[in-house]
């Protein structure tokens, strides 16, 4: 039946259908390779970012004691109180006609009080300086640790990316390789089918030439 439709000798019809099936397989394999390539391109373009759990957080490290202030409010109040107390006492001494020696003693007491306040401020400043230095050391230690952690993270991120890329490349190569192999096989089948038809073709060509002479 097929021979009657196509015409020529019988082997042509058989060869044609064999060749068309091979062509169809070759086209399907080529199409599949194209689809896979597009899919993999999309996966590569849109893959999720690798989140580095070791990301640099050194900007968050600071010395909490860097800017400690001295609590001078209380000291100033204490000085003020001493001055008021001195003034009041002097007024009393004057109104009661007490001796000048009492006034001198009072003035010395006031001076002592002020010296005590100054010493307290100095002590606070010293303590703050110590804290600042300790805080700075802690900060440097933390920065050092963070630096090491960040280096670890970079190595991890590199390894992850490398692993992921290798997986995708391997997969791409495997799938595309398979598709192209299928395509090549189908093309080879097609050539085989065509070769089978050449005998028949020679028939047509021979007749053509024979008529031509």
């Amino acid at each position, binding site marked *: 039946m097929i021979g*009657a439709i*196509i*015409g020529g000798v019988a082997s042509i019809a058989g060869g044609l259908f064999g060749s*068309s099936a091979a062509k169809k397989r070759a086209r399907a394999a080529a199409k599949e390779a*194209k689809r896979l390539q*597009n899919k993999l391109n*999309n*996966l590569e373009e849109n893959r999720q970012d690798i989140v580095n759990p070791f990301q640099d957080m050194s900007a968050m490290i600071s010395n909490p004691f860097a800017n400690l202030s001295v609590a001078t409010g209380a000291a100033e109040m204490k000085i003020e109180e001493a001055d008021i107390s001195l003034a009041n006492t002097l007024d009393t001494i004057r109104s009661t006609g007490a001796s000048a020696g009492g006034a001198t003693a009072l003035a010395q007491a006031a001076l002592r009080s002020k010296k005590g306040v100054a010493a307290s401020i100095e002590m606070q400043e010293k303590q703050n300086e110590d804290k600042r230095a300790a805080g700075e050391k802690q900060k440097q230690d933390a920065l050092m640790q963070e630096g090491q952690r960040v280096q670890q993270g970079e190595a991890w991120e590199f390894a992850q990316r490398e692993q992921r890329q290798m997986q995708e490349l391997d997969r791409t190569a495997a799938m595309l390789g398979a598709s192209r192999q299928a395509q090549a096989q189908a093309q080879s089948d097609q050539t085989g089918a065509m070769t089978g*038809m050449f005998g028949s073709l020679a028939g047509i060509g021979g007749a053509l030439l024979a008529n031509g002479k």
Partner: protein
Amino acid sequence: MENKNLFQNLYLKQFNESNAIAYNERFVSGSSDYNFQLLDNAYRDVGRIYAKLKIAIETNNCMSEDCALELTGIKNLEESPQASLDFLSSLIAELGVTEESSFDLNNNYKYTAANSLMNGRPGFSKTDGYQAYLDLLPDGSQQIVFLGPAFETPLVINSAALNALLESDTSLVVSTPDINKDMLRLLTEVGLFAQDMIGENQELTATAKITEEYVMMNTDGSFDYEIIDLGNGKGRNVLKYDLEKIEKKVTPFINAEVAGLMSSEQDVIAAWNVYISKDTSVEEDAQMAQNANAGDTSWIYELDLPLQQDKKVLFEIKYKEYFMNNYLKQFTTNQLPTVKEDAAVFDLAEAKKAKAQKFLDDNDLN
């Protein structure tokens, strides 16, 4: 608007598959002539033409300067048998798509009729009013012409045009992508299943389950079950899944799958018309195809190519829905607990009582 291709293709498909012709007395009582003899007819006068050209060249009686036209004519004729075979085999491969089970009925119905003729199907003989010619054209290309009752107007296909289409990875008749195969493979690629759940055939095993990473847990690390009513006062636990997390995980893979399909927009339309548009499957009876398949929401090859962006977006959305509803859902519903003691059937009333008591205990309400 009436979709002529859909109706005609459906008719031809049913006609070819129904065996109705066996009950046609006129057909049974007469003989049918399938003697189209495409090659014999095409090459009948070729010998004479070839001889004339050859003689003209050899006797220096050419019509054209330096015998250019005659030499070209000789070359075309010498190459034509091979070209005929190439053309016919490509054509048969293309028309063969109309026989695929998932063939999109929105393709041009004339190709279905041409395939029936090329395969000598009952009802498509010369006796039934059909005819086919292969013509060798002066420019070296060839054309095949199909005529007959199913064609209304002749179907003409030129070899150069067909070659150009095939070279540019375009099909005359589009083969619908195997969505079922693609989605079964996609299931193994979306990262929800452990490697040991994938069989040698690269599909999920019968016992495959989504990994526990996507199962809802209580704060104490135990599974957060949903209780289903089995009837007769009995119930059982089933796993609850973090659907939001699952969707987030699978979306990039689905998008990549769609991007792959978009490498051929013809394929996208075929997949849309046959499967995606109305959630249909290829197993549905052909009789239902008219209503069940895309039908009036079909995308038309002649009108909708190249695909507009809104259609691409719509396809991506519906493709995802199709995958989630028809392939992934079975793994997120009615999944029994992996902990043996939690998997047993229990008394619903007792379970409710125990749950209420646990609530009272947890909230210090006793």
